[in-house]
């Protein structure tokens, strides 16, 4: 059993896990451990993991930095090549730890907390306890339970009532290690009534070892709050990322999540959205550009629990070579959720004979006055468009590039930071041309 070594590890090192974390996080480990014992890691025998066997990801000899041995890295040095020219406040997680020596961080509005999860659990114990490991329900999810067992730190944004953080925040996750490593990362975003915040999360691998990363991001949007959460994955092919994004939305809140997988190894993104207050609005976007043996699986489960909510999902995959894309979009409209608007779209461009796309829309509607739709297309580049461009003098290869970048445009359009949109278009362009930034010690493109 793959789980056994982690169960043993947890039991044997429990004291050290706790000693290098804080009471707030430690308090949840026993219950998470129980849940993990019950469910284990999901395997491909489960319908929702049919094409993505998560348990195999853990079948190896992975180190965990439970003793918090300092990782020697200057994040500004490691990331300088790819920091978009965005006007943001920048924060770092080195593996799963908040980097406390950050600078270039401008002033924040009064009452806002941005920083380490450990510290937040001590300075804001009530808020921490109200949401941590509550939004990110681990009872039926072995990966989230596992993460909750081992997580020792993470990143928090807390925005109090009526406060707007105008300038986008940027969190850069740096993966650094001398041996194959398991990293368990947490993100908590709490936007109180009428608060607003935008966060861009960038993943960046520094070392050429295997990383297995679990991430649990919990988003709370209270009444009238607005949260933008953008993730840009630019990891090496040796990174296996198991990402879980949870969002609970109150009345009239607006949450926009978009995940752009520019370069990766093996990725599973789980989205669990709950629209709990009337007129809540959720936008979920996903773009995966894959080649080689890369694998991206997006699983979105969106629940309309109250009337008059609006959700919109757009997932796009551009698959080349021997890559695999998986999409499952489940929308649940509860019995009382009348006047729901729920739209889902999955479009895939498969430009090689060996690439594979698996897609499954799943609509469960228990209310009778709703507008729900889903669309799914998988195909190749439009030959007529290709010829049209060529007929104006654009060579075939260049015409293909233009059309591939164009294919991604509407996912980029979901991003509500203009300068980030521009930068994304440039990065996507480079990605398709195989010119993604390479820095001296970065192995992203290997």
């Amino acid at each position, binding site marked *: 059993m793959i789980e056994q070594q982690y169960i043993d590890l947890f039991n044997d090192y429990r004291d050290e896990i706790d000693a290098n974390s804080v009471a707030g996080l430690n308090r949840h480990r026993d219950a998470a451990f129980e849940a993990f014992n019950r469910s284990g890691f999901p395997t491909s025998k489960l319908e929702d993991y049919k094409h993505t066997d998560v348990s195999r990801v853990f079948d190896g000899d992975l180190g965990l930095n439970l003793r918090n041995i300092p990782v020697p890295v200057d994040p500004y040095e490691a990331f300088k090549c790819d920091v978009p020219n965005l006007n943001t406040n920048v924060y770092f997680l080195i593996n799963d730890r908040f980097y406390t020596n950050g600078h270039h961080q401008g002033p924040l509005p009064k009452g806002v907390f941005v920083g380490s999860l450990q510290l937040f659990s001590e300075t804001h114990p009530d808020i921490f306890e109200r949401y941590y490991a509550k939004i990110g329900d681990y009872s039926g999810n072995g990966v989230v339970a596992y993460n909750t067992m081992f997580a020792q730190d993470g990143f928090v944004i807390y925005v109090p009532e009526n406060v707007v953080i105008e300038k986008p925040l940027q969190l850069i996750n740096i993966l650094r290690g001398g041996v194959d490593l398991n990293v368990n990362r947490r993100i908590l975003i709490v936007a109180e009534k009428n608060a607003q915040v935008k966060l861009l999360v960038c993943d960046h691998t520094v070392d050429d070892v295997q990383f297995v990363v679990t991430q649990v991001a919990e988003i709370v949007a209270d009444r009238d709050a607005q949260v933008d959460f953008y993730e840009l994955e630019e990891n090496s092919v040796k990174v296996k990322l198991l990402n879980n994004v949870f969002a609970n939305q109150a009345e009239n809140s607006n949450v926009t999540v978009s995940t752009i997988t520019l370069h990766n190894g093996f990725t599973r993104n789980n989205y669990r959205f709950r629209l709990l207050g009337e007129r809540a609005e959720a936008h979920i976007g996903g773009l995966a550009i894959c080649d080689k043996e890369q694998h991206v699986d997006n699983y979105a489960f969106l629940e309309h629990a109250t009337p008059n909510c609006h959700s919109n999902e757009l997932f796009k995959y551009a698959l080349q070579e021997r890559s695999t894309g998986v999409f499952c979009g489940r929308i649940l409209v509860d019995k009382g959720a009348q006047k729901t608007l729920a739209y889902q779209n999955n479009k895939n461009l498969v430009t090689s004979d060996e690439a594979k796309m698996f897609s499954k829309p799943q609509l469960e509607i228990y209310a009778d006055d709703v507008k729900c739709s889903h669309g799914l297309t998988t195909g190749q580049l439009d030959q007529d468009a290709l010829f049209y*461009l*060529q*007929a104006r*003098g654009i*060579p075939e290869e260049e015409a293909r590039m*233009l059309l591939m970048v164009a294919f*991604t445009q509407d996912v980029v359009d979901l991003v509500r930071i203009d300068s980030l949109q521009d930068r994304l278009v440039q990065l996507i362009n480079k990605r398709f041309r195989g010119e993604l930034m390479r820095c001296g010690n970065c192995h992203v493109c290997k």
Partner: protein
Amino acid sequence: MTNLLKIKNLHAVVENKEILKGIHLEVNEGEIHAIMGPNGSGKSTLASVLAGNPKYEVTRGSVLFKDRELLDMEPADRAKEGIFLSFQYPIEIPGVSMVNFMRAALNEQRKYRGEEQISASNFLKLMRDKRELLGIDSQLVSRSVNEGFSGGEKKRNEIFQMAMLNPTLAILDETDSGLDIDALRIVAAGVNALHSPDKAAIVITHYQRLLDYIQPDVVHVLYDGKIIKTGGPDLALELEEKGYDWLVNP
């Protein structure tokens, strides 16, 4: 008179069906040729074959453009050599802006001629000038290529692109279809303004109407994959009056 285009015994098939069955046609500099003919006679196929659409397979014949074999060239190279096809059904390309599309096309053509990339200010000026020539709204060029354009706007956009790229040989494939009379006048005026003694145009149309505005030097009738009649401008008037039947079943 310098010869520009020489089509010899051109045969082409699409999906195993022969559409062009031996076309002979010569176009000289300064000339405007009209090609008319009933539906399904092969007019659009001829236009597509000249532009290099890979859907059509040429089985026999040759096409010399400026004394070079056109059929050996990639579609993009044909465009760079100066051939322009105004599409009967312009393609919508969401996500590619008109501005980026035109800049890319223009710069590819300049590169081919050994010229430098056009500067941003010159490009914008050129766009504005040509837009005004065709009466195109500035909003239209900031959108994706043909996306959400009306039928008339698409046709006007074709001639706008032609104005931007300044080709030697323009092939207009039923550019008049879907145009109201005002739009037709604007498009025709645009085509006429772009015409000069060192250029030529092939105008494919069903109707004499367009030829009231674009005066052809030569009129051909294409029927069942062959040119069955060639004449002067009067031929178009005769066709308008008598239809094609007298030619097809003499």
